[in-house]
């Protein structure tokens, strides 16, 4: 872990300046979006951002004020292929899912059933969401299978 943190720390200054450049840009899609959208999320979530470079992707960590941590996975092809979140409050899914937000809503409506809503799961051919949430604990992962780099195990993405 210390290895990753140190790499992230070195990468931080460059990305802080990039985020500043994009402050005035319109917020754009994240999942399925490009690097600009990662910066847009950082601004939208008002979070601090760290980048960790891995062989096949960059992981951008955005920590929001509630303590919720959002990870966005950016492939070498320049696309956000996966996002995860974990913490006491959920992230803004419209912002995080981008163009996949409406498919998320449609799938949620199709599978909704009476009772307390503690979990949801979407497994479409090119859009997967796993999310749980109850009082003060929300976690989730969403990814676009066709954008996942070869050799990357989605199950191992934190």
């Amino acid at each position, binding site marked *: 872990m210390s290895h990753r943190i140190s790499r992230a720390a070195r990468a931080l200054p460059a990305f802080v300046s990039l985020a500043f450049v994009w402050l005035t840009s319109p917020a754009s899609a994240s999942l399925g979006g490009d690097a600009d959208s990662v910066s847009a999320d950082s601004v*939208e*979530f*008002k*979070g601090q951002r760290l980048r960790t470079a891995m062989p096949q992707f960059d992981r951008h960590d955005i920590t*929001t*004020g*509630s303590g919720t941590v959002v990870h966005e996975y950016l492939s070498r092809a320049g696309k956000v292929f996966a996002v*995860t979140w*974990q913490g*006491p*409050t*959920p*992230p*803004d*899914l*419209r*912002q995080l899912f981008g163009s996949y*937000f409406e498919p*998320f*809503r449609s*799938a*949620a*409506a*199709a*599978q*909704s*059933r*009476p*009772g*307390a*809503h*503690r*979990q*949801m*799961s979407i497994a479409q051919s090119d859009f997967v969401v*796993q*999310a*749980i*949430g*109850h*009082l*003060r*604990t*929300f*976690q*989730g*992962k969403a990814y676009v299978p066709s954008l996942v780099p070869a050799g990357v195990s*989605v*199950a*191992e*993405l*934190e």
Partner: protein
Amino acid sequence: MLHAYRWTLLLAVVALTACGGGGGTSTISRSTSSSGASSSSSSSSSSSSSSSSSGASSSSSGGHNFSAGGPNVVPITVGPGPTPSSSFFNIPYASVTVCIADTSTCTTIQDVLVDTGSVGLRLMASALNGLTLNEQHDPSGNGNVIAECLPFPDGYIWGPVATADLTIGGEKASAVPINIIDDNSSFSPTVPSSCTSNGISLSSVDLLGANGVLGVGLYTQDCGPYCAYSVSQQRSPYYYYSCTASTCTPASEAVGSQVINPVVLFATDNNGVILQLPAIAATGATSATGYLVFGIGTEANNGLETATVLTVNPINGTFTTVFNTQTLSFSFLDSGSNGLFFLDNSIPNCPGNAQAMQFYCPTSTLSLLAMNEGQNGAMSTVPFQIADLSKLSQFDFALNDVGGTPTSIMGLGTSYFDFGLPFFYGRTVFTAINGMPAGSATGPYFAY
């Protein structure tokens, strides 16, 4: 025709199974029980033996007999609920009475979901019988009304915050901040986009299966200190908003003004709750009647006695369950979940639509075992059974042996066992509120 909703999906299950869809289930390498799998003809002896096994742990808290009632005892019922045409199983209901603050103008709302997995009283606007409660106003004096957007994994509940006097059984609380769920669009402002970003609207009787939610979980507030931060320190999706007649903007909501666990405002019996449901047959029951009891160790009738106390992580209310080879560190008890949700890849899911597939349909009833461990190191074994949901009676709303797949998020280390309502049958279950001394221990904890 009572609950067509549920049986639409299960008819699909049966149809697919009959066509050979169940053929791929192969063997399940575990001990199985014949009791639940056989039809109702073998009912009494087999079902009583299996229910006693699943309720075995209740002997640890067997001294509680609430049938005599008392000011802190409220009957609860697992039954068809408010929407018989679309109802679902294993939802426990109670009645609550709300009054316009400092008046005797009141109404009683039936079929409110009793939920140990959430905090705060939320009532459908359509269920208030025309009663207009006092809305909570923005403390800045601008005349705005405070509203709340409560997030769920798939959506949100939205509506104004009101202040009401509350009576549940013999317990009373005054000036309770509650959430009025805007299920009839009587609340004029547009739902803010930062709220709808949670997903779909769950503000309906059909989607909750209830006229409201009585959240009596582990905490005092539904949000806590974070929602009292300045707006600039919060981010979307916000919980609390300040609303004009047309628009809402995010708001900082003082902790003392937030929607609150009503239990803590009772004069006594305010440190937690007990839920007790009877043991039921493995084959299910048309309904089940039990008790919601206020207070832990505050009266002659609500002591912990020999119950095992499992303290939970105070941050998120979870304990650790060991099941098969899995160590599940985000586990919880939840009367608002209508099944036991845990991962076992050897159990086939029910075929059918997206709702059926969330449940297990083993080829024969399985007898399984989980072990719970609290943060205090206390351990408790939990025997349970999982039956083929599609073979349980369509006329039963109380089902003991229902299991389903949790949403497992690989890589996050947040796996859990959700002990939903089946866990509560045959048990007396204590939920102690964060920071409150309750009997021999201090909340937050679960005990049973």
